[in-house]
């Protein structure tokens, strides 16, 4: 949903922007993801139809130096490289780091900025002082960045976000414990936040370069020259100072350029990304485990919470009765997706911020509790009242009578419908994708989109779901049989079937 929101927002902007584009002078069409956030290039909050940012200003300078007019093509971070390749624009200027897999697809200009990484934690944090303290904590960062690659290499658990504000917000909300981010973003979003603080000094040195299409060597030469120019004449320095990005690293770097020292691209690590079935099944298995855990957790909540709802709805005082009915009708009647979104995005407003998996677990639990309550109600009402009376007459209190006499009998009646709900819960966990929980259905979508193997993967995923539901159903039937042996046999219905 969030993803879709982004995209729609995006498209709307696109149309506005390209309308205004004028194609008189030769253009320098540059691509970047404005939803990546400040301070690179982003929507001006004061004039939502304009973009601002230090890279925007830098491109203006570069274009001027090249004798072109800049033309901004907003694009998606994930597809920047392929959009460049398909000629949607001429250069990528988006805090792009040179990496091995990118080097296979595009070429890079000289670097124009030395970025560092900064770890940020909450003000009251006293366990995390550097990245080495994070092996037991989840660190947030943006996907496919130097930071995410470093976390992956060091085996530190991390979560990918699409934009810095999301990551810092979840840090405040304690959904994660630290954020590792390029200094420019950190400077803009975190440095002045009174609830956050930096954990240790900035570290690591990386390069921002401009990406170009393979073969566009002439343009590369132009761009490289322009970069040299704006560094040497000090205009880049001014911009960086204006945006609070001027620091020791830049002094060092720009001085070396001014003195004619050639900046070397550091070692580029090579990563490959081919689709393979073994990995796919492994990923599906991991996703299936998440699904199972969420389903079991939710069912536990539903089973436990359903009981007071059922009793309250049929026998509580009037006000409790109304409350239970409203609860049931609301949670049954509205889409669980909307409920989850509310819990995930709405609750933090009143100070309750749960991580995604917990939100899914609780949300589905609350939702299914409404269903379970109805199942229980029917089962409880099917028990003859003589059973209650006999229990009371033996001096049992209501709770004891319920627990020892009524519940065991009602359980057998409720069991098949509960199994139904459990089995369909496995599949309902798929809505959790909306709050970025990575479970089986999400994994399926991702893999299928990546591989195009919709049908084969569909069959594989069906088998996974079956592998969850069959043991459940089998257990439930065995339990039923065991319970049946102890209570009034039903008549031999064979005649009915005949």
């Amino acid at each position, binding site marked *: 949903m969030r993803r879709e929101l982004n995209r729609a927002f995006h498209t709307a902007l696109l149309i506005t922007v390209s309308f205004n584009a004028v194609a008189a002078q030769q253009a320098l069409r540059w691509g970047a993801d404005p939803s990546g956030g400040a301070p690179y290039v982003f929507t001006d909050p004061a004039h939502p139809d304009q973009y601002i940012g230090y890279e925007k200003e830098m491109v203006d300078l570069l274009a001027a130096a090249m004798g072109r007019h800049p033309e901004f093509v907003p694009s998606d971070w994930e597809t920047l490289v392929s959009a460049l390749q398909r000629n949607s624009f001429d250069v990528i200027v988006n805090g792009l780091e040179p990496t091995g897999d990118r080097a296979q697809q595009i070429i890079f200009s000289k670097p124009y900025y030395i970025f560092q990484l900064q770890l940020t934690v909450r003000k009251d944090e006293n366990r995390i002082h550097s990245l080495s303290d994070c092996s037991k904590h989840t660190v947030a960062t943006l996907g496919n960045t130097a930071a995410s690659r470093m976390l992956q290499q060091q085996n530190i658990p991390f979560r990918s976000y699409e934009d810095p504000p999301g990551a810092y917000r979840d840090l405040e909300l304690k959904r994660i414990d630290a954020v590792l981010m390029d200094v420019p973003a950190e400077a803009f979003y975190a440095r002045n936040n009174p609830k956050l603080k930096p954990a240790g000094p900035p570290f690591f040195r990386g390069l921002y370069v401009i990406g170009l299409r393979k073969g566009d060597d002439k343009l590369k030469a132009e761009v490289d020259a322009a970069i040299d120019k704006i560094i040497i004449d000090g205009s880049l320095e001014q911009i960086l100072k204006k945006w609070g990005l001027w620091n020791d690293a830049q002094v060092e770097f720009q001085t070396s350029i001014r003195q004619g020292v050639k900046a070397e691209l550091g070692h580029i690590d090579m990563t490959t990304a081919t689709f393979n079935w073994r990995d796919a099944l492994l990923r599906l298995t991991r996703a299936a485990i998440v699904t199972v855990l969420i389903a079991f957790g939710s069912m536990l909540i539903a089973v436990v919470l359903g009981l007071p709802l059922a009793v309250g709805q049929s026998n509580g005082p009037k006000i409790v009765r109304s409350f239970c009915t409203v609860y049931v009708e609301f949670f049954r009647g509205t889409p669980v997706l909307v409920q989850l979104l509310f819990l995930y995005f709405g609750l933090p407003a009143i100070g309750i911020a749960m991580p995604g998996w917990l939100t899914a677990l609780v949300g589905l639990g609350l939702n299914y509790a409404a269903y379970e309550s109805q199942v229980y109600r029917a089962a409880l009402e099917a028990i003859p009242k003589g*059973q209650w009376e006999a229990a009371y007459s*033996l001096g049992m209190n209501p709770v004891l009578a319920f627990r020892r*006499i009524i519940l065991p*009998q009602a359980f057998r009646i409720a069991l098949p419908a509960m199994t139904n709900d459990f089995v369909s819960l496995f599949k309902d966990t798929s809505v959790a994708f909306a709050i970025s929980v990575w479970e089986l259905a999400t994994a399926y979508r991702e893999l299928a989109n990546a591989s195009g193997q919709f049908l084969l993967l569909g069959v594989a995923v069906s088998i996974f779901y079956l592998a969850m539901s069959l043991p459940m159903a089998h257990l439930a039937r065995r339990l039923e049989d065991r319970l049946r042996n102890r*209570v*009034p046999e039903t008549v031999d219905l064979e005649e009915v079937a005949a």
Partner: protein
Amino acid sequence: MIRVTDLRKHFGPTQILKGISFEVAPQTVVGVIGSSGSGKTTLLRCLNGLERINSGTVECGKVRLEAKLSKAEYRHRVRDLRREVGTVFQHFYLFPHLSVLANITEAPVHVLRRDRKSAETEAYELLESVGLKTAAQRYPESLSGGEQQRVAIARALAMRPAVLLFDEPTSALDPKRTVSLRTMLRGFVTRGHTMIIISHSIGFLNGLADKLIYMDSGEIVEQGPAEQILNDASDARTRDFVSQAS
């Protein structure tokens, strides 16, 4: 022990009990007789709190139920009452998911918190005395009518309540079992229990009940010592009813 004063009960517009008053002395047996539909079962359900009374009072040991009590207070007193009073229902209401033994030991173990071992030993003794020792591990479903009734009696006796209420405890019993139940209950009375027994079998009450109450259409027509009611009733209806029974 028990004193009922001007007890009234109605279901909707239908008056079921129209002012019942009687007393039961400790360690005595009161028999209630009367035609079908005269309100005997309803009276018994009022005595153990399963029906709320509409007017009058029920006193039982230290507990006193009154029609005008608040809901919560009534409920509270009924709980106290039920610790003293055990009931054998006309329709038995055995617990189908529990074995015969567990039916009997369930309440002693979980309500009186007796340890399971001794509760089971005592349950076996009770089962033996009603002739069902071999059925201990069976489930109620597979028992014959008379066997179920005897389990229900054993279940109530296992709690050793001060007061025992029986609703037609011999309806499914053969003559022989009826006689031995009478002997057994007499033993319980001498050991300090008080009983109210509803029965259509005057033969069963004869020699067991100290006092008899004859009810008709929600009223007590006559009450008195058993001898007197059986042989020398003052009311014509009572004489008529008793005569037809023999």
